[in-house]
């Protein structure tokens, strides 16, 4: 029954109207079944549209490993579905566009900020408190906080469905952290799903609707946030 439904969904997945109906029938935005990597053996996870889940856990518990597995960057087993469609049906590069990860220390390879953004795309820098000419900055001259914000922006402009954030505000001061949280919130309100790794309990409480704790290879739900 379930298999037949998935086949129907994937058959019709190009049709947006059908997708909206599927969402009404509460197909999860992201669904993870029995995910297995070198450090954990069985992870189940569900993420709804417009939902933000905070992921906490002691350092070394594998939060980054989990995000990398979801982005399919390291070898892993298990089923992952995006809007009911198995990731096996996506080409790897399309999958990583849809389920976009922003690592804790994003890499830069071009000389200028612009080299890391799609060409001919109108990009609003003000959302992050950066001037419009920030696109022409040399990456090497940006502060680590600016780079952090730009890394989130370069993921967002590619219009992902799910955003995997690995401590995105670790290098930011109060006002810039707020800007990032606002930007992520607007992404969420437009239907995006977010998994947000953080060490900051207060922030987790503030940005997330659900809290997950990763410890000793087990993922468990701690409590529902008020938000």
């Amino acid at each position, binding site marked *: 029954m379930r298999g037949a439904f998935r086949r129907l969904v994937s058959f019709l997945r190009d049709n947006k109207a059908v997708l909206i109906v599927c969402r009404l029938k509460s197909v999860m935005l992201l669904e993870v079944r029995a995910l297995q990597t070198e450090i954990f053996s069985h992870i189940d996870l569900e993420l709804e549209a417009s939902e933000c889940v905070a992921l906490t856990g002691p350092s070394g518990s594998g939060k980054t490993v989990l995000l990398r597995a979801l*982005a*399919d*960057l*390291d*070898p892993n087993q298990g089923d992952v579905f995006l809007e009911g469609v198995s990731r096996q049906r996506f*080409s*790897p*590069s*399309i999958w*990583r*566009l849809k389920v*976009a*990860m*922003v*690592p804790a*220390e*994003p*890499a*830069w*390879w071009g000389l200028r900020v612009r080299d*890391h953004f799609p060409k001919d795309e109108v990009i609003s820098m003000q959302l992050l408190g950066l001037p419009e000419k920030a696109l022409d900055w040399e990456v090497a001259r940006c502060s680590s906080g600016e780079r952090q914000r730009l890394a989130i922006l*370069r*993921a967002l402009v*590619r219009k992902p469905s799910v955003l995997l954030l690995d401590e995105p505000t670790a290098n930011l001061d109060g006002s810039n952290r707020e800007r990032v949280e606002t930007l992520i919130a607007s992404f969420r309100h437009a239907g995006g799903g977010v998994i947000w790794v953080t060490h900051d309990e207060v922030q987790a409480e503030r940005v997330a609707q659900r809290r997950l704790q990763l410890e000793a290879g087990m993922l468990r739900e701690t409590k529902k946030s008020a938000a």
Partner: protein
Amino acid sequence: MNLVNLSALDLGLASALILALAAMSLWLSLGLERTLLINALRMTVQLLLVGLVLKVLFAHASLLWIALGAGFMLLVAGREVMARQQRRFSGAWGYGLGTLALTVPSLAIILLALVVLVRPVPWYEPQYAIPMFGMLLGNSMSGVAVGLDRLMQAAWQQRNVIEGQLLLGQTWDQAISELRHEAARAGMIPIINSMAAAGVVSLPGMMTGQILAGSPPTEAVKYQILIMFLIAANTGFATLGGVWLGSKRLFDERERLRLDRLRKVT
């Protein structure tokens, strides 16, 4: 043939120069005398042996024996490519990659050279086939080794950059393309430069040998030009093929960067 024959005494006198150099190294405590003498001895033994092998091969010029000799040369060259990489694939790929990259263009080019260009009778005449194949392999081997070594080192060092590009939705091919270009350039530049220096700075060994053996310099030069074209083409194709195949093997079917397939050689 107006070649002056060398006696054992001539070689012995020449080797005295090496002994003098070893004595100098000992006196200056450079610590090189042992390696110098061992390698000089090794060179002597290897070349005497290969002289005997070639003599036998020339006497029994059958296609089977020549193919066996060429196969042996390919295997040794592949091993040498592997030995010159600081990080290489574990398992069969470590040896197979360089050997395969050398084998495909080298066989095609030597067949082209013998059957279409030089046309000795028979076409596998060892006097032509073996030295030409040796020159092709010796140069291409360096190109492939440099290219692969550069590719693996760069992939290792720039892991974050490659994965960062994958995370922004690039394919494996796009994410590795810059490193692949650099590796291919590194492998091909030496042979390109040596064409520029040929005849002006360096007198290539094959031409020199033919002139010493009494060939007219203009004939020797023609052979040298031919072999330089073949060597440069072979080095280029082997390097491009090896670097491309190696870069593909760095990723798996889900286009993940798999540096765990490499191992460092200590």
